[in-house]
Structure formats: structure tokens, C-alpha cells
């Protein structure tokens, strides 16, 4: 709005033209202002885009966690990747330790007495739960949220056996349903 006024400032007769019709001077004003805006937009885009990394030096989302035999019965916490791996004799599954509320690392709490809860319409006896230290979210042993601010269950990840050396492969980029079990 204001800039439009700027363009109309050239007075009639000042440089030979009449009224609001564009003069050489107002044309130059317009084209230089346009050029300035274009260059600001250009350098601005370049600056912002340069801050979006093209290469990340972060650990891979897919990693080997060790030989299945090395895992004890129950839970194992892989610290670097923030994931729990559970072993029940011959079956394995992985649950993320990242709270769905705001990303803190949940803690696995062993219950003193087994608790019977209803999950998916079926009663289930559980011996451990996940509790989040940041804002008090609580999850059942299978990762379903039941208290606190967490909006979703904990993520389950796909497990596989590496064809070359038989190690467990955890794939943090591939969430799976909580019925998933890997039998070894």
C-alpha cells in the first residue's frame, strides 16, 4: 500500500510526463525496487535452505543388536538406540523406549505383584510396565498407554535375523503391529 504511493510520487511535468502515467524515473524506481526484493528473496532462500542438512551423520536406523542366544530371558535395553528387546524363550520382539508424549526415555518398572489388565478386550496378566519420568505417562507391558498425557501406545519395531552372521536386526524405520513376534 505504502509502496504504491511511492511509485506515484513523481509529479506531473517534473520529467516531462503527465499525471499517473509511468515516467522513466518511476519505471526505474519500480524495476530497482523489484530487483532489490528479488535479490533479498534469493539470498534469503539460499540462507534458509543451507540450514537444512543434506547429509546426516547420525547412527543408522537399522542396526545389529547381537546374537539371539546372548539375550537373557525378559527385557534387554539397547541404550544407544533407546529400544527394549524382549525374549520369551524362542520368540523376540522390540518396543521403543521413546515416550509418545514428548520423547523422554521411559523406564521399565517390574511390578511386585502381577496385575491383570484388559487389553483389546482380553484379560492379560502382566509383570512389568513402562513409566515415563518426564510427565508421568504409563504404559502396559505391551506398550499400550493407559495413564498420563501419552496420546498413543509405544511403537513396536520389526526384528529380523541377519542372513550373514545370524545377529538380530532391529529396524527403527519400520513400525509393526504389537502381534509381531520373531521366532528363532
Amino acid at each position: 500500500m505504502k509502496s504504491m504511493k511511492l511509485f506515484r510520487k513523481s509529479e506531473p511535468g517534473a520529467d516531462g510526463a503527465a499525471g499517473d502515467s509511468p515516467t522513466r524515473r518511476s519505471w526505474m524506481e519500480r524495476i530497482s525496487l523489484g530487483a532489490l526484493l528479488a535479490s533479498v528473496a534469493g539470498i534469503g532462500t539460499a540462507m534458509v535452505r543451507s540450514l537444512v542438512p543434506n547429509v546426516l551423520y547420525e547412527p543408522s536406523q537399522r542396526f545389529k543388536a547381537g546374537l539371539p542366544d546372548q539375550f537373557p530371558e525378559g527385557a534387554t535395553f539397547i541404550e544407544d538406540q533407546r529400544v527394549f528387546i524382549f525374549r520369551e524363550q524362542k520368540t523376540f520382539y522390540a518396543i521403543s523406549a521413546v515416550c509418545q508424549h514428548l520423547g523422554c526415555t521411559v523406564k521399565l518398572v517390574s511390578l511386585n505383584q502381577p496385575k491383570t489388565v484388559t487389553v483389546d478386550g482380553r484379560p492379560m496378566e502382566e509383570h512389568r510396565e513402562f513409566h515415563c519420568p518426564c510427565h508421568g505417562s504409563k504404559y502396559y507391558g505391551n506398550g499400550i498407554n493407559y495413564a498420563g498425557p501419552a496420546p498413543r501406545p509405544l511403537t513396536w519395531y520389526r526384528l529380523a535375523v541377519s542372513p550373514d552372521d545370524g545377529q538380530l536386526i532391529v529396524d527403527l524405520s519400520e513400525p509393526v503391529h504389537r502381534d509381531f513376534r520373531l521366532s528363532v
Partner: protein
Amino acid sequence: MTTKKSIWEKVLWTWKPATEREAGDSVVRNILLHWFPAKVSRDSLSYSYSFWLGTVSMVLFLLLTLTGMILMFLYVPSVERAYQSIKDLEYVVSFGSFLRAVHRIAAHLMVAVVFLHMVRVFVTAAYRNGTAAGQNRPLNWIVGVVLLLATFLLSFTGYLLPWDQLAYWAITVGTNIASAAPLIGDKIRFLLLGGNQIEQNTLIRFYVLHCFFLPALVLFLFSWHMWRVRKDGGLASVDRLSLKQKSEKTAPVKAKTYSLLGLARGRSVQVETALVDYDRHTVPSSPNLTRRLLVVTVVTLLIVSILAVLVPTPLEAPANPKVTPNPAKAPWYFLWLQELVTDTTIHIGSVTINGALVGGILIPGLLVLAALSWPYFDRTPLNVVGVWFARARTRQNLVFLAVVVLILVLTIVGTFLRGPYWKFYWFWEAWPPVPKNF
């Protein structure tokens, strides 16, 4: 008239002006004082009207800039060395722990003082235009709200830098709140962190924001804030004074309404500020204002220094992505937000809205929006401007103070009443022991 001046007086200004001319000159001719008017009303110098809270925040900002510049020489913004350099600062560098404590205490105080300044401006209706021409106080209120937000961002970016547990988990929670924003949330988080994880990219980003961008923003907004105060004819208490004066049976104030030789529209600043009887109500800024400025500065520095010695500066364990402290708490001025994101996850049937969106984005966003637009809805009569708790504004003040009290209560709950797993414990209840391992 021209007495011999010492070099000191030439560089700075005289504390004992012999004439009013000399008093005015010291303001007009000195860059440090040039933003003050030559004469200032007694009412706006009152300690009990404004508590000089704006000045205190400015002093704190300058102190933070000074100590911050020294800390920049001693701190290395790298994930391998950041924690160690803070440790060196604490235990090896001469006066290092004092400098760090001063910087930290001044930052905490600045958050508190800027907030109190806002409360004072609200309850005195100082965001309202008074009687002078060319006022735009609502705009200055908006600048002030942005300054408050910039102050929050400065402290938020500052406490990542030690790269300890507090830092790491505060940034985890903070940037996850950002990612709860609809549609663009994840992109914002990626841009803030410079990746998917909190790593070197994140540290250098927050460092540059903390040391350059945000202070530059505050400096710019602060200049604008001061310039607007001048344009608006000084503090709101001057408008109150001018209204009172109009009801008195005295000779009217001289009205000078000439234009600036036709070069600019409107009246000159001096004319706009001539709301009150100069002879009765105003005094030369030098030394009346400068003396109080000195007092306020010295008292602020004194309080900061004492607190810096008495209050220990914490440094938690080095940042460890594997272990979330239990409980994990933000600094006190963000605990009301942490309490909000905990309590505001909403379940409607099968739909769940994350508390991060409600308590972390929607509620604070609405509060800021309400603050920004409030001056434009305030329709109370003019005689409330510059008056503490004016009758006509009782309802507004109650609403505003209720929000302030709510924020304070949530802060207290978050600070003192939350234990492991963010469970509620009264002051007298002991926290249960928490196992260290998962």
C-alpha cells in the same frame, strides 16, 4: 556561561549543572543520554509508580551481554568439549564460577523482572493512549510482549549450552512440543535440531541463536521500545498528571501547535510532550533522572552479585541420551508449561489430542494472542491511564491477575510438588527411592 570543563565532563556529562541550559546540554550532547528528554516530569521518576522495572531489565540485559561476551571466550560450542569447558569455568578459570553465576542469576532475574514489568504496565493501563497527539502505546505494548517472548527464548537457548542432563532433556521436550504443531511440526523440529537427533548441529544452532540473533533482536526491539516511549510523551503517569491539571483552576498549559517548518506533518515531539506545566511538574533529566538511573543500576548489580555468591549454580551430569533423569524438570519459569503439557492430553471418544499440542502450543498461543490484542478491546474511560488498579478496570485486572496467579500456582506445583514419574507429593511427603537402572 562557558565555564572550564574537565575532560571527564566533556566525555560524559556534569553531575552538577550550574544552569538549566547546562543541564539540558548534558542530555542533548551526549550519546549515552540522548534518548532522554531534557526535562522529565517528577511523576514519571517515582519509584513507587513504575518500580523502574523496565530500567532494571535493561541493566540486566547489559550485564548479561557483558558477562556473556567474556563467557564466549571461555566456552567451546562442541558436543565433545562444551561440558568440559563449563567444568573448567567452574573449577579452573579465575572468577569463572562467579561470572557464570552472575550470568545465570541475571538471566533468571531478567525473566522475572520483564514479566513483572508487563504486569505493572497492565494494571496501570499504561498500554492505553492518553491525551497527547501522535501516541501509539498499543504498538509499544506489542513490542513489549515480543521482548518478553525473546527473553524466554534467550533463556531457553542458553540452558542447552552446558550440555548437561538438564540441557539435553529440556531441549528434547521443547523441540518435541514444536513438532506437535500440525502439518509443519516435524519440519520445524528438523530445522531446529539440524537433523533428527540432538547432536552437534543442534548445539551450534542454539549457540548462534543465543549469542547473536536473539540479543540482536532484543537490542533492536529495546531501541524501538525506548523511542516509542519518547514518541508517546513519556510514561502513562504523565497523562494522568495532565488530566488532573486540566481539572485544576489554573492557567492552561501553553499550546504550541506549529509545524516543523512545513517539512514534516504533525507537531514536533517537544510540543507533544508539553502536556503538563513545565515549571511546576518537571525537572531537568540531568541530574534528576541520571542520579536515579545510577541508583537503580547499582542496586541491581548489588542484588545480582549477592545472589550470584549465595545461590549455587548447578551443573548436572553430562548429557546422556540413554538416561532420562527422574523427575526431569525444566527451569522454574517453564515448569508451568511442563505442568500444562502434562495435564492437557484430551480423549474424545477414540480421538486423542496430545497435551503437547494443547498445553504446549494452543494455550500459550492463545495467551500471547490475547495479550497482543488486549489494548484494542479496552474501552474504559481515559482517566484510568497511569493509575494503579483503576476502579473502571477492576474486572480486566482480575482476569489478568487470575491468569498470572494460575501461572504462578502451576509453577509452584511443578517446582515443589512433583516427584519421580511426575507424581504429586505434598511439601511434607518424602519422595520414594527410585531405582537407578531401567
